[in-house]
Structure formats: C-alpha cells, structure tokens
C-alpha cells in the first residue's frame, strides 16, 4: 500500500511546487495555517539567515524534504532579514477562508519583495532612497530609477560611462537588465550584489512605451519631456513590467516621471564620487562628507540633501538662490530655530502617502501622517511672513491639506492601534 504512494506528492506539495515554479529565483514563504513555511533549498537558506530550526518532514511515504517555518505574525520581523540578505522573497498566502472550503485551500503569491521593491520600514533606511534601477544596454545606454517607497521615478540615457556614473550616484538596491545581455554584461553590473535578468522581450520599445502611457494615462510621453529618450523610456517601462510581475499593482503614487537632466549638474566621474568620499567612505570606518553636512531633521531632508550632494548645480542663478536662503537663515537665527522645532515633528510623509496610495497604511501610520500635516501648518505660516522671496514662495506652494487633516482628526482616534482588526 505504501509503495503506491511513495512517489506521489501530497496535494499540498503539488500546489507548492506549482507556485514555486512560477517564481524562479525567489524564496517562497508558503502560508500553511498559522505558519509561513519554507521547503528544500529555501528552508536551508531561511534557517541560516533567520536562525530558525531546520527540520525534515516525511513528504509522501519515502521522500524527505527540509522544512523551516515561523508563525505568520512574525513576518514583519523575519521578512526584512531575508530581503536584506539579498533574497527575493515571494509571499504566498491562503486566498480563501479555510473554514469555508473542503479540501485544499487556494493559495497564491500576493507579493514579491525584493531588495529594490519594499515598503517595509524594517527594510528601508529612512535617511536613504531605496532605488530599483533598470538598465538598457546598447550603443546608447538607457537607465531608469524608481523608489517605490516614495514614488520618485526618473530615467536618462547616454553613453555607458554616463549610465555607470548615474548608477554610482544613485546606488540602487537592485538592478534589472535584459537576459539578452547576460553574457556581455559590463563588469560594474556583474559586481553589483543584487541584479535580476528579465526576459529580453520585456525590453522592447513598443511594449515598454505602451506600459508607460497606460500607467500615466497619457497619449504620449511628451508632457514628461522623455518622449525622445528611446533607451531611457524602455528601461522605465521595464520597471513597470517588473512591478506587475512582482504583484505590485497599486502604484498610483508613481504620479510622474522625469528626465535626469545631466546638463544641469556638475559632471562627477565615478572615480570622483568615490575618491572624494561624498556620500560613502572608501574604507570602512572612514567619514564621508555627508556625515559632516547632513544635519537635517526629517527623512525627506536627508534624502534631498544626499541627492544635492551627488548632483551639484552648474547654473549660477540656482546656486545663488540656495546660498541666499542659507545666508538668510543664518541671519534670522530665531526663525530658523522655530522652523527646526516644527520640522522635528514631521515624519516620513513621503513614504506614508505612498502607503496610502498602495493601501498599506495602518491606523497608527495614518495618525503619523496627520501629525506631519499638522506641523507643516506653522511652517507655512512662518515662511509666509518671511521677507525672503524664495522662502515666501515655498510657503505659497505648501498645501495645507485641511480637509484631509480635519477628516483624520474627527474620525480617527489619536491612540488608534497598528492593526485594524483588534477590538478595543
């Protein structure tokens, strides 16, 4: 009797193998009851990275398979560790209520978390952008960058030197390229710790163009000033394809795309960014310039400053405008102090609103968003009274979002919990 079953998979493992096959290269977290389980190779990796017990399960009658798992509520703890270790992680959930079905529950991958695609606060460093890059190789090379957590989306094209330099400046957490170039990949890409090859048909002009105009609901890309960037937009479209492939379907916060206008910025070759230790030390323990210059108090400020540092300006008027404001803020020490006091309370509104757009915000975070909006109000007022024209302009541009603010205040309790399904 046992013989007949020996090489037969259990229905569960059959389902597992089918899903696993759909996501090659990803570590599959398979929801079984209250646990996320990993099997085989995945289990070996997970047990090492997470320091959890590796066991074996008799699968069918004769075959044994490695198994490691953790309770589902520990996902927020364990997922970042897996991702930070450079793994692509597919989360497979039960799509039906087990109570209501007979036999095996329907399961499917609900999210694929990769180093370049994450919303999890434990994966993201709030002082840094977390970029996903796509590279289109060719005599003219194209590149696109997306920070899914903030919605920032840019592209560019030029010589490979130029693209390489941008990669050096933006330091993406993950780089996509076409399988067609796997053999001829430039050295700097090969060395990047996390890269992923997409099918070569993805990097087709028509397909990617279509993807972009469908996402932005426009008839062309002219309005974004990137219509002429054939290679750059191809890379950008490939990123949108990748979002879909990884089950990131709520992406309305990616509301615009822009060209990285290289001619506006000082050209720093890739050796220079490294040699001068602008944002990262050359040796461990070294101190980069940014750690001297960055005294920002908000995550948005920190990320902005970093961008300014790798993209110094060439336009005298724009530089003067910044210098003028800096001089003014030094003179008006009291105003500066007051501004800082308010800024300190502003959280990561950029990433919070992204979470709103993708429907992943929890009640506690909604209150953090409210707080950030609240503390923006006195800033708007202070700047509005400033004699400095650039600051005054900044005040005019700041939205009060009054309706939203009032709505959150009247509807949401201040001590709202993290989870929505808890009774008081």
């Amino acid at each position, binding site marked *: 009797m046992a013989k007949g079953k020996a090489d037969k998979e259990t229905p569960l493992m059959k389902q597992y193998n089918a899903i696993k096959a759909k996501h090659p290269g990803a570590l599959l977290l398979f929801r079984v009851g209250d646990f996320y389980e990993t099997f085989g190779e995945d289990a070996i990796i997970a047990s090492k990275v997470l320091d959890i017990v590796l066991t074996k399960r008799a699968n069918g009658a004769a075959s044994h398979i490695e198994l490691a798992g953790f309770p589902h509520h520990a996902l927020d703890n364990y997922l970042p560790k897996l991702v930070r270790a450079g793994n692509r992680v597919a989360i497979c959930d039960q799509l039906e209520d087990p109570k209501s079905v007979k036999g095996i529950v329907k399961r499917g991958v609900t999210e694929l978390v990769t180093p370049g695609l994450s919303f999890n606060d434990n994966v993201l460093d709030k002082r840094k952008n977390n970029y996903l890059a796509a590279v289109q190789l060719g005599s003219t090379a194209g590149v696109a960058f997306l920070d899914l957590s903030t*919605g920032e989306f840019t592209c560019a094209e030029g010589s490979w030197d130029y693209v390489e330099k941008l990669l050096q400046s933006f330091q993406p957490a993950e780089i996509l390229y076409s399988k067609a170039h796997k053999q001829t990949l430039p050295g700097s890409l090969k060395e990047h710790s996390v890269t992923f090859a997409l099918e070569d048909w993805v990097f087709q002009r028509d397909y990617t163009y279509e993807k972009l105009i469908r996402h932005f609901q426009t008839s062309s890309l002219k309005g974004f000033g990137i219509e002429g960037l054939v290679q750059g937009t191809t890379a950008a479209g490939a990123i949108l394809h990748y979002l879909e492939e990884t089950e990131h379907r709520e992406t309305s916060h990616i509301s615009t795309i822009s060209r990285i206008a290289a001619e506006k910025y000082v050209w720093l070759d890739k050796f220079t960014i490294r040699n001068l230790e602008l944002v990262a030390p050359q040796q461990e323990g070294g101190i980069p310039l940014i750690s001297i*210059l960055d005294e920002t108090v908000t995550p948005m400020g920190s990320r902005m400053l970093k961008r300014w*540092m790798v993209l110094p300006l060439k336009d005298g008027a724009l530089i003067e405008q*910044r*210098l003028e404001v800096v001089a003014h803020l030094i003179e008006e020490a009291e105003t500066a102090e007051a501004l800082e006091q308010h800024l300190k309370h502003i959280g990561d509104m950029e990433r919070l*609103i992204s979470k709103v757009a993708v429907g992943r915000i929890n009640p506690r975070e909604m209150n953090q968003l409210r707080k950030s909006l609240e503390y923006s109000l006195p800033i708007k007022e202070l*700047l509005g009274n400033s004699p400095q024209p650039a600051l005054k302009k900044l005040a005019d541009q*700041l939205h009060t979002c009054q309706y939203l603010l009032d709505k959150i205040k009247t509807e949401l309790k201040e001590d709202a919990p993290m989870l929505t399904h808890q009774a008081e």
Partner: protein
Amino acid sequence: MIQDGVDPELDEYRRLAHQGKDYLLDLQQREIQETGISSLKIAYNKVFGYYLEVTHAHKDKVPETWIRKQTLVNAERYITPELKTYEEKILHAEERLIALEQKYFQLLVQEAGDYVVQVQENARLIGTLDSLLSFARVAQKNQYCRPKIHEGDSLEIKDGRHPVIEKQLPVGEEYIPNDVYLDHDTQQIIIITGPNMAGKSALLRQTALIVLMAQMGSFVPASYARIGLIDKVFTRVGASDNLSRGESTFMVEMTETASILNNLSNNSLVLMDEIGRGTSTYDGISIAWSIVEHLHNHPQHKAKTLFATHYHELNELAKELPKIKNFNVSVKEVEGKILFMRKLKPGGSEHSFGIHVAQLAGMPNAVVLRAAEIMNQLERSKGLEENKERLAQVPKANYQLNLFELDPKFQEVERLLRQVDVNTLSPLEALLKLHEIKQKLG
C-alpha cells in the same frame, strides 16, 4: 480606532460591547457571592469563548447547572447558559464594531488617496527647507563662509580647509588652512611637490570639496572663496580599490587617467595625485610630464589642474610652460627630523623626505641609516642633477595637433579628400570637388 460620533450605528455597537463587559463583571461578582467561590474568574479564549474558571480547591462548590468544559492542572472551566447568551451579544457587537471600523478606516484611506500629489509636493518642499536649514546650521557651527559664484574662469580660495579632516583633529590641534588660485591664463596648473604625509592629497581633495559644496549651495570651509563655475570634476587621487579585481595598480591608474584626458572640458577641475607612481621612476616621470604638457597645451580645454607629485623633476616644466606654477607643501628639517608644516608655498621642493617617513613609520634603525647612506652616495654621483639637465633638454612638445583631429568639419573634409582618385579626375570635376569641400567648411 474610529472616533465616537462618526456613525451612530458604530457608537451603538461600541456601547453594547462595553455594556456586555460590565454585565460580565456584575455576573462574576454575583456568582462569587452565590457560590462562595472567592477565586472565581470569568475569562475568554478563542476555543470556547467566555467561561468561568474555578480552582480545584473550590470544585465542590460548583452548582450542578454549570457545564464543565475543560480541566486544567489546578482548575476547571465551566460555562452557563446565561454566560453564553451574553457572550453571543458581546461577540456579535464586537464583530460588527470591528467590521464597521475597518470600513470607515478604508474610506479614510481612500479619501487620503486624493492627496497623494499634494503630499508628495509638500514632502519635496519640506525636504528642500530642511536641507537648506541644515546647510545654515553646519555653516554656523563650522565657521564656513559664503562663496562668491561667478561665470568667469578663476578659482580663488583663501584659508581653505578640508571639511572632514578638520573635524577629526585631536583637541588643541588646528587645521592648517591654505590658499589656492587657478585660472585659464596665468595659473592653469599647479604642480605641488612635497614629501609624503605632508598633506598634498588633503589639499587636492579640499579644493574639489570646496568647489562642489559651493555649487551645492552650501557655505564653504574657507575665509574667502570666489568660484568660477566648474562643469566637470575629475580626480585621480590615491589608491583605487580595484586591486581585488586583479588589475594592476598601474593599469587602473592609467585607465582612470585616460578617461579624464578624453572627457575634459574648458571649465573642468582636474585633481591628479601621484600619477605614474605605479611604475618605474623613468616611466613615471615621463608619463606625468607628458600628461601635464597635454593639459597645459590643450587647444580647447584649459582645465584647471592641481597636480601633486613627489617627482620634483617635474618642477622643470614651469620653466618652459607659462601657465604652470610650482608650489610645495613645506616641511622643516630640524636636527635630522622633519616637521610637517602643511602650508602651501610657491616654489618647488628638492627632497622627498622618503627616508624620514620610513623612520617615522618605525622602520628598523639599521635600515633607515643604510638608506640615508645610499641616498647620499646617489646624490653625490649627481644622478639627480644629470636627470634634471637631461629633462631640461627634452625636446619641446610638438603640440601642433593634427589638423584633422580638431574639428568634425575637418574630419569630413579628410574623408572627402581620401575618396578622391586624382588619376581619374577631370579638371572640371576637380573644381566641383573643391567647391564641395569649401562648402563643407561653411
């Protein structure tokens, strides 16, 4: 989670859930009095809802109407019909409460979704303000000055400091500031000689950092800075970290240098540190020499350059080429030991003080003494003097660039000329060809 007053239905369920719980407390008190079980507890678990828990000590006091559900090591759990009736009410209210709260929260999230663009814009503005405030704070804290930005070609820094190193010095030690001046026509290239460790690299780096900080819109670590806008910055500074890839130091150095020379612009700032170090002395001097000449004589791009080297032979270049100036990072020799002054001064330097550095590094005394002896011998043999003389006689760079390299137009002309077969050309065709070529030149 959701405030009172948003939805009367929600408030009602919340009241019911609360009331139910108050009722349970009452029930507990009542049962304690009736049964005399002082340790009676009402609790909840997922498996069988609300229950009454009685320790074994009081087991015999349990009324017969209670239904036993579970036996633990030291207690038993019971339910009663009354308890179950209330449980249903409470659980139902709670279930509805949670569902309604989730609904309202989802609606709120949806409404917030309309504000994505506004909040993103706010985030950008807040980020800008925060960054500028940070610049202001850092400028004040570290005594930076406001740079003067201009469209000309001169770069003038007075009392410039290295923003990072000046913060790392031990207490009581002051960073020695330095002046740097560069422009297109009088002082395009500065050759800095001086011993290792004298601070050449720091000086190079700080010059680039001051320029970049200014163009980021930050104040700069100097007492005065007037900066003609730079559009490209190139550095060949220090050892690269490519060694682990198996490329030789020298190859890496040459690759990086080549990339600099091929991408120059008229408003470039170029920093080169110890070019040619990775090869033999003669190779090194020769390559460094011709690189400096190339930068100086470039017909289009007068890249402002700081060139640090320990080949003091390169000081000879300044004699021939007007836009090159020699500077040295001074050291004082006191009783056979050296003091690093870290001050940039006009003029070249004669020694590289390598032996002193070896001594400072803790090289065994015997080795240091022997090295000094050998150097004395070499210097006496006038090897160095001869080198200098020979270098002075190096033929001047024949720097007439090939006509056709200069301009794409000329390249086109070259192409046309090469196509012409003079042997088959009629006089009229020749004239027409000449006309065509002339038109190409515009």
